[in-house]
């Protein structure tokens, strides 16, 4: 009887997990067009224990700040988030990210629009860690006007806003070189990109081998940052934006492991209690 019930339980749990996973997979979108083969990278944060690579996130932030930032904002990110636990510039010594000098320096590189408390006029001041990344355009109309009608989307949750967001972003940045098939007509300001829905994108190719223009620098002596190839830059900025979309990933997985172990032990104990209590019913053994 015990084996039968365990078997039934496993079957029920299996059906549940399988059907949910099936649904999850079925909900995934269609693949890219024109024979483009998606590169599926093994990301640092995949798997049960994986989490973001700090050096890669820091390099990724540099790519964002020097390339993406010219058009794309991070709406949901404050500078202080960069110094949060699990963030790219976290420092154990500064539990409060507002005190973190790296974060302070980064924030100060941005101009934030504020109100002069004395006369109510609009002033521009250097950012502080508590500020959010300031918007690049005053409004959507300006964003569209400057960018040929297409508003550059917010990037702070982008990796979550696409199916397999990390692979999507990495491939999108690299797919510009894929040969454009005949029969696709692009209007002005459009570029061919098979990863984009509809294969047409308003964003020009951003990452180019820029000898001497863009180099990864290392703050720590003796550390050799990788060469800033297109692939490397795409992977790094994806790592940074993946963190930005899911900053609690490391905390979540840690809590997950603890919870699963706890629940497993609890289940075993409850199973034993169940067997023990029900054994009272068998006069031969009781």
């Amino acid at each position, binding site marked *: 009887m015990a084996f039968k019930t365990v078997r039934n339980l496993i079957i029920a749990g299996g059906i549940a997990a399988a059907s949910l996973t099936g649904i*999850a997979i079925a*909900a995934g979108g269609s693949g890219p067009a024109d024979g483009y083969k998606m590169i599926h990278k093994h990301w640092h944060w995949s798997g049960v224990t994986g989490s973001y690579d700090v050096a890669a996130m820091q390099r990724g932030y540099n790519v964002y700040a020097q390339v993406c930032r010219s058009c794309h904002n991070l*709406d949901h990110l404050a500078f202080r988030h960069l110094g949060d636990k699990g963030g790219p510039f976290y420092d154990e010594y500064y539990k409060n990210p507002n005190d973190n000098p790296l974060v302070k320096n980064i924030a100060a590189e941005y101009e934030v629009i504020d109100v002069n408390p004395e006369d109510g006029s609009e002033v521009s001041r250097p950012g502080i860690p508590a500020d959010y990344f300031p918007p690049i355009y005053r409004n959507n109309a300006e964003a569209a006007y400057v960018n040929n009608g297409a508003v550059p989307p917010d990037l*702070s949750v982008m990796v979550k806003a696409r199916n397999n967001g990390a692979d999507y972003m990495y491939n999108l940045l690299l797919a510009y070189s894929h040969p454009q098939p005949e029969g696709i007509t692009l209007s002005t300001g459009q570029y061919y990109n098979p990863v984009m829905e509809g294969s047409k994108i308003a964003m020009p190719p951003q990452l180019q081998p820029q000898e001497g223009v863009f180099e990864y620098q290392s703050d720590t002596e003796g550390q050799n940052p990788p060469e800033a190839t297109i692939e490397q830059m795409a992977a790094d900025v994806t790592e940074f934006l993946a963190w930005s979309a899911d900053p609690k990933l490391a905390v979540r997985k840690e809590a997950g492991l603890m919870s*699963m172990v706890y629940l497993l032990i609890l289940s075993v104990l409850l199973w034993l209690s169940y067997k023990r209590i029900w054994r009272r019913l068998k006069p031969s053994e009781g």
Partner: protein
Amino acid sequence: MSGHSTYEPKWAAARWMDQRLPIVRMGADFIMMPTPRNLNYWWTFGGILLLCLVIQIVTGVILGMHYVAHVDHAFDSVQRIRRDVPYGWLMQSTHAVGASMFFLAVYMHMFRGLYYGSYKAPREVLWIIGCLIYLVMMATAFLGYTLPWGQMSFWGATVITGFFGAVPVVGESLQQWLLGGYAVDNATLNRFYSLHYLLPFIIAALSGLHVWALHVTGSSNPIGVSNKVKTDTLPFHPYFTVKDMFAVAVFLMIFAFFLFYLPDALGHADNYIKADPLKTPPHIVPEWYFLPFYAILRAVPDKLAGILLMIGAIAVLFVLPWLDTSKVRSMRFRPIARWFFFIFVFFCFILGWCGAETPDDEAFLGLSFYRLSQISTLYYFAYFLVILPILGLIEDPKERPASITQSILDYGDKPEPEKVLAPAE
């Protein structure tokens, strides 16, 4: 089961209370309810569902403290909850994944009821209250999905409220009344939030009635033979409390797996894009638990007919106790109906698959999802309206054990043997 009460107050204070408001007696009687001893794990989902409801209400109330129901701030406030509110990421994910888990458990619970004939006399009212709970659950889930104000929230709300526009004559005004305007907007979001907060308490009240009705009729059981002798039942506590707790722990493991490792797997990526009334997403797809009904909706070309079919798919559940003509509750003893039931479950999955895909796409062998959903819809209704009514009259059921006690003697569980002479019922 109501009737005799075995509770005896042990302390003076308890006696004092018992003479004024016998609430402890009620609880004690509830928890000592004689329960069929042969219940299998399919019967643990009732307890699991209670836990699901509690989880949703607790996390929901906490989220409500941080959420801002305004079209300009709703999306951002959810992001703020996930990033800045202490353990907000946990509350938000638990609530979102919890909705899926709630439906997973409720579907298990319903399929169990369908297979073991739990809807048959004397449990018709119990079943109907259950159907009502399911209906309110669907409404609550739909309203809740609108609140994060992502693209799927907005366009899902637009599509669903659009159904009401298809009602003849009053449709348009009905739709405007529901939306509080001509389109889904701030007024809609506010009333959806208000109702999303209200309905779970209605579910809680209905669950109270559901459990009350259960305690009047007693649980059904896998062989569907009513309790006859004393050895047929065991007190709910401790035998079934401990068993339910074990099942709950296993269920929580599945819950935790999705919560901590695949928190977005059951949702839709588009909902991480802020709602944009000017930009329709390429595929508007409901949450997975609505997919079978979405497929039924799209199985006919006419909008109104589709809506009627979808409503009918749920309405048919309410009258099921009178559609199934068989006196035999459990499908274990219905050799033919059993297989029709398995096919029914299979087609429910197929409908879910159809709901997730584009109707014009090919499913397999040149069969489009549109046709596949038509075939599945046909079977769905045929199962309730044709197969169960007719089969009950012509099927020859297998011989049933005289009592629960009799049935479990074969399994090696040995209660005191007691001869049962009454025929199976």
